[in-house]
């Protein structure tokens, strides 16, 4: 990974939530890096720590109960964790922006969509209210919504259109990094196709790097060029699209592929991964996937495997690789 156009570098990031039932280790010693113009897919099931990681980057985690225990997050060479509140505010929305999952609730119901987009623009550029509203209308055209709809309220738009507005808002200030947390999960499949198509076009046009969080490997196959598989707060496998889809090595990744129904597959056999997600308040000592791993051996139980680079750019965290 060339150092010079390294956009994002996360070193040994650990985030805990201290709740009444005990300390939840949401993210454990995570390492990740991304260069400019890249689209990274962050794949994992509920409780894998995807959202916690990106909220950590944006420093949007509510301090009680969340706590960033250790680690650094370098963005454009500067450590975001050291930034002041004011500096972070100028980064959010300008350098890094974020889209949330459910379009139904991520827009303020009592403000027109035009005003909400204009607000972002005015936050980071010193221009008049009228001018920022016009710019908001052009943004809406970009995401495929007629300009006049800027005066509408969120409840007057369909789910798909609301998600387009959210995307327009996120890209309004042409950020370097766009974080999309399950952007299309809540949409119907035909609308999802429309929105993904539009997103791909805009990302190419603005040359924005993207972190795409999803649990749907189909979407990852279409949109991402690098993929990280997360399980119980750690990245267990990282590589390019080819590495993961054609040469997945980690048992959890292989298990995921085995249990996803695919409409093009001939046979109907699904081999599920046995057992359940680990309880975050008492994670297993060694490899987190040990209790559900078909290939588990003795050393997996009490020794956490190191991250091995099995081929150029393809990392796996497993003893048997």
């Amino acid at each position, binding site marked *: 990974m060339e150092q010079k156009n390294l956009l994002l570098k996360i070193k040994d990031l650990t985030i805990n939530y201290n709740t009444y039932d005990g300390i939840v280790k949401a993210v454990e010693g995570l390492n990740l890096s991304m260069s400019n113009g890249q689209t990274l897919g962050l794949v994992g099931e509920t409780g894998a720590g995807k959202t916690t990681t990106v909220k950590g980057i944006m420093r949007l985690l509510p301090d009680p109960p969340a706590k960033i225990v250790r680690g650094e997050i370098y963005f454009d060479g500067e450590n975001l964790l050291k930034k002041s509140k004011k500096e972070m505010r100028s980064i959010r929305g300008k350098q890094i922006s974020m889209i949330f999952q459910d379009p139904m609730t991520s827009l303020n119901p009592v403000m027109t969509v035009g005003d909400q987009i204009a607000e972002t623009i005015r936050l980071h550029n010193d221009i008049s209210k009228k001018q920022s509203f016009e710019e908001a209308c052009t943004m809406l055209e970009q995401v495929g919504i007629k300009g006049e709809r800027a005066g509408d309220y969120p409840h007057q738009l369909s789910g798909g259109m609301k998600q387009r507005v959210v995307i327009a808002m996120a890209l309004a200030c042409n950020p370097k990094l766009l974080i999309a947390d399950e952007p299309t999960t809540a949409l119907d499949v035909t609308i999802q*196709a429309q929105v993904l198509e539009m997103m791909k076009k805009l990302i190419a046009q603005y040359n924005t790097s993207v972190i795409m969080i999803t649990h749907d490997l189909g979407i990852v196959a279409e949109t991402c060029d690098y993929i990280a598989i997360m399980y119980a707060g750690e990245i267990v496998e990282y590589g390019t699209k080819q590495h993961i889809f054609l040469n997945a090595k980690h048992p959890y990744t292989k298990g995921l592929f085995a249990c996803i129904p695919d409409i093009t597959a001939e046979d109907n056999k699904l081999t599920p991964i046995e057992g359940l997600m680990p309880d975050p308040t008492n994670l297993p000592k060694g490899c987190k996937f040990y209790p559900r791993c078909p290939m588990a051996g003795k050393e997996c139980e009490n020794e956490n495997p190191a991250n091995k680079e099995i081929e150029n750019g393809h990392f796996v965290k497993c003893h048997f690789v």
Partner: protein
Amino acid sequence: MPEKLLEVKNLKKYFKTKQGYLHAVDDVNFAINRGKTLSLVGESGCGKSTIGRVVLRLLEATAGEIYFEGANIRDLDKMQMRKYRKKMQIVFQDPYSSLDSRKSVYESIAEPLVVQKAFTNKKQYAKRVYELMDTSGLAQRFANAYPHELDGGRRQRVGIARALALNPSFIVLDEPVSALDVSIQAQVLNLLQQLQDDLNLTYLFISHDLSVVKHISDMVAVMYLGKIVELANCKSIFQNPVHPYTKALLSAVPIPKINVKLNRIILEGDVPSPINPKPGCRFAGRCRLCSSVCKESDPVLTEVDRGHFVSCFNK
């Protein structure tokens, strides 16, 4: 000829709203053979869940007949209906709201038995509840647990155990796995298939996820805005879809494979409002092959191939 467990004829369900009548289900016909699974697939607002509830008479149909084991259950009064209820059950999508948070797992599963007074003493109830927990893969130590202590997968298994309590012959599965994680989803799907084989159950499987539907169903009905636009066995729907909407639907599903050529059909615009719909094909506004006839009269389900029905004018 395999026995038709459930047959539905010209089923309609309209909801009264301030702006007029909402045509949730508009003249639907289908039948399910015993031991088979018919899937209703379609996007939100197409009326699939409504059909699921109307078939069980949880919602009263506006018109049409529902034949269950040959008898039209719409003519039954409350008492007779209670007898038929034993044979028909339902499993819901959201594991959180389908279980009463104040009742323990044991009580939720035992409830249908208690309601239908299946047994006389407590010991028999307990034995039956444990049997059900074993068949639906729930460890017995959860009998005392409460819904908020279980994860999604286990809560769904309680829902299934409850549905099996009166050993029904027909179960409506309303999006049973869409709220679950992928790995858990696979476990529950396998369980449902295995139960179908062991207990010769008949499923009406409702979902918006085409890959899950392909995996589990024998027959598939694709719905759009209250109407069935295409009905066929599973293989022919996925191999050669005929209706333009089915084609667009299938092309939109993301495939977990790379270097696969995607000839994706992107539909324009949004689903029209189901309130006081205009005559003509509901898909006309968004269909590439739309012609003048599509706009005037309603297309009817006609047999295009053996057992393959489509409701479209240009076949």
